[in-house]
């Protein structure tokens, strides 16, 4: 039930361990970490910078997390999303869900990252070694991934 938006890196092991510590109702913990990678499209990627909308970002992440809590029986959940400049290999985002049940932990975690990618106000700008910058375009595959989780009672968007 925690959302954090921060510039600094996070300690993956510490975050995950804290999520289930002392809770004996947790049977499964699923987590996803997104990292900056060297991409075929931008072979000379030097870094990327994530801009966000302070205030609305936290509000949207909290709403996404509340939706996951409403849909699945979760004992704990966590979203940590960084902003600012990051180089290849650095961690960008962590989502994690703990549940009594393996399937719930998996589905809720998958849902969180899919929805986050289409709803949380973050924008990536890539910086090449030659100094150029390029705003990353939204991908239709992300919309398709998020659409899987739509239900009939969701408001149209």
């Amino acid at each position: 039930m925690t959302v954090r938006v921060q510039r600094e890196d996070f300690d993956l092991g510490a975050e995950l361990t804290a999520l289930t510590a002392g809770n004996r109702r947790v049977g499964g913990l699923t987590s996803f970490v997104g990292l900056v990678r060297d991409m075929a499209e931008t072979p000379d990627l030097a870094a990327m910078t994530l801009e966000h909308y302070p205030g609305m970002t936290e509000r949207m992440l909290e709403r996404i997390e509340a939706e996951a809590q409403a849909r699945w029986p979760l004992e704990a959940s966590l979203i940590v999303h960084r902003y600012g400049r990051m180089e290849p290999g650095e961690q960008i985002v962590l989502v994690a869900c703990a549940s009594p049940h393996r399937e719930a932990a998996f589905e809720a975690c998958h849902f969180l990252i899919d929805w986050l990618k289409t709803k949380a106000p973050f924008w990536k700008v890539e910086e090449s070694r030659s100094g150029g910058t390029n705003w990353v375009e939204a991908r239709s595959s992300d919309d398709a991934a998020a659409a899987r989780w739509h239900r009939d009672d969701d408001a149209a968007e």
Partner: protein
Amino acid sequence: MKLLYFAWLKQKTGCAEEEVQPPAEVATVAELLSWLEGRGGGFAEALADRTAIRVAVNQEYARPGDPVKPGDEVALFPPVTGG
């Protein structure tokens, strides 16, 4: 009304944040975008392709027909690319 611009909309308009007082007939998101476009220059360029722009009113996603009024915080940005 407070306007916020993010990502390439900030770059193209040359503006991160501004206070505006649109005329009274500007009552919806679509009308606000048209009024901003009418300023010309970077604003006209940034707002030319409406399919590339998302709008939030008071930190909630809004559609072209949704209302805007004095005192609102209206943000303009491209589709999100976080995660």
